[in-house]
């Protein structure tokens, strides 16, 4: 049987959760009852019963709840820690960024109207990969190292990427980073549950696909104290849809037709409870 690497990775994640599930030896199964049941999907991947599923994952960010620098730092640091993101210092050309803070004028470059309310002009936003519906990065990648999953998440295969950086030229959101040098010496505390990367490959936010597999929300959402919402855009009863149905949310560069899956509530519209 030929297992593609990305399927193998999915398998690994599923097995990690469903220890003792169908994959492991019978002896082990008997000795240690399953923490979570696993099922097998269409391509033969073992899936934990705890895993969260969606037709299209999406995020709504209520910028008004990011009041202080600490609100941003908490979210960024949670992401950095979870994903082994190296720290090259803020002015380095080699910076790796998955989610970070940008002011209104940069987040919504092209929309920066001089007559906007001061409150909006002064607002800052967490930015990240938009997990586009029509991702240009996926279209241009010559090896399918970056790919769109059936649940809408745009993923990266760090072992297939040849480092041509075509995806970085194609991304309208500046969401992608390249490992210009070996990142490992620059990682503060290595999280053994997530891979570190090698030099010469591109990386970006992965909507915490590894956490969704374990039934957990993305780490930024968890750390945001209710400023970020995550759910299925295709499900009218999901949190994100409930907010979008009742609040005016905007996306970055909608005119390009990439269909971002990250929505912003701007100017204290408030997503409330």
């Amino acid at each position: 049987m030929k297992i593609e690497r990305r399927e193998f990775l999915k398998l690994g994640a599923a097995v990690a959760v469903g220890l003792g599930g169908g994959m492991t030896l019978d002896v082990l199964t008997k000795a240690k009852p399953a923490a979570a049941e696993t099922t097998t999907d269409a391509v033969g991947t073992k899936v934990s019963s705890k895993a969260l599923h969606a037709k299209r994952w999406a995020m709504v960010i209520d910028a008004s709840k990011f009041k202080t620098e600490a609100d941003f730092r908490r979210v960024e640091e949670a992401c950095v820690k979870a994903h082994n993101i190296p720290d090259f210092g803020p002015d380095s050309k080699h910076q790796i960024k998955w989610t970070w803070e940008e002011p209104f004028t940069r987040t919504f470059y092209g929309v920066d109207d001089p007559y906007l309310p001061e409150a909006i002009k002064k607002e800052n936003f967490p930015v990240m990969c938009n997990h586009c519906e029509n991702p240009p990065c996926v279209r241009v990648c010559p090896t399918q190292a970056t790919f769109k999953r059936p649940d809408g998440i745009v993923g990266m295969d760090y072992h297939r990427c040849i480092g041509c950086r075509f995806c970085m030229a194609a991304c309208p959101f500046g969401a992608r980073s390249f490992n210009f040098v070996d990142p490992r010496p620059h990682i503060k505390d290595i999280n053994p549950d997530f891979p570190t990367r090698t030099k010469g490959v591109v990386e970006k936010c992965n909507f915490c696909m590894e956490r969704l597999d374990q039934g957990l929300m993305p780490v930024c959402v968890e750390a945001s104290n209710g400023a970020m919402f995550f759910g299925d855009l295709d499900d009218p009863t999901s949190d994100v849809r409930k907010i979008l149905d009742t609040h005016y949310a905007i996306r970055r560069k909608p005119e390009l037709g990439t269909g971002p899956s990250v929505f912003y509530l701007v100017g204290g519209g408030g997503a409330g409870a």
Partner: protein
Amino acid sequence: MLEKALSGGKRYWTWVVFLLLLILAGFLAYMRQFEIGLGVTGMSRDVSWGLYIAQFTFLVGVAASAVMVAIPFYLHDYKNFKEIVIYGEFLAVSCVVMCILFIFVDLGQPMRIMNVILHPTPHSMMFWDMCVLFGYLVLNFVIGWTSLGAERKGFPHPHWVKVLTYIAIPWAVSIHTVTAFLYSGLPARAFWLSAIMAARFLASAFAAGPALLVIFLLVLRKVSSFKVGKEALQALAKIVAYAMIANVFFFLLEVFTAFYSRIPEDMAAFQYLFGGLDGKHNLVPFMWTAAVLALLGIALLVIPRTRKNEGVLPFAMAAVFIAAWLDKGVNLILAGFVPNPFGQVIQYAPTATELMIVVGVYAIGLLILTVLYKVVLGVREERA
């Protein structure tokens, strides 16, 4: 026939050794990059492509040298190009090899390059570019080498070579079109998002390729037994003139669209090139030099008296070639990243290591060209 490249005078070997030293220096610089990563270059998160990809893009253009001599000779039976068509083809071979090398040195994980073939991806323009470039390399090498072999034995070209020459002509158009598509299909980069990009690529290629060919033919006239004819040079000069005029015209169309529409994103890169943006103006001198040289080159080639003066001709060709290089081998790629997706102007400057690698790749190209031209000269001297 390759043995012809092994016998030469002192001047020939000095040139070869000089190129080998440059290649060695470039190789050592590349070893450093291979060890440390692309961090040794001036590229960054914001300007994620630099001189390597710019040289690749430019050299795809120079490879058009072949088709501009092939069309008049093979399709229109223009006899004055009979002797020089092979020099155009071998120049194309050397350029395409350099293109492939520039892509290779730009990769973060060069050892995985075969993934492009292992996981063929038709929706990626990079995949198609690899196909057409490789095809163009094979076509030109096979056509050139086989024709030369036949010439050596005093036979006409085999019939199948004639067929290949017909295939090579639209193929040459395809390499520029697909290379332009790498850029013109990206929603993220307003500067590149232009339907005229492929036409611009063709025009600048049809100018830069033959211009360089003329320069090399004039060098051969000085240092070798091959004395290129006046008529052939004049015909090439006219091709260069028309192509360069079309190239400048297409560029001005872009400028008009951006500045008459006044769409900020469309104007930004041009503003950066011509006057700087946000107080940053790294590329301004390059842009104005290119503009002046392009107009100077066109003037020298359009005025019959200067075009026909073979003392002026190399300067006119150099002006066109350098203008095309600055436009495509520097400005087009670098300004595409300005401003970045957040509207910031982040500049790029190559490092010494990066420049040495660029020089090394050019030296490899020149060495291949030298060897191929030496073989041609050797075969023809033997026949004479």
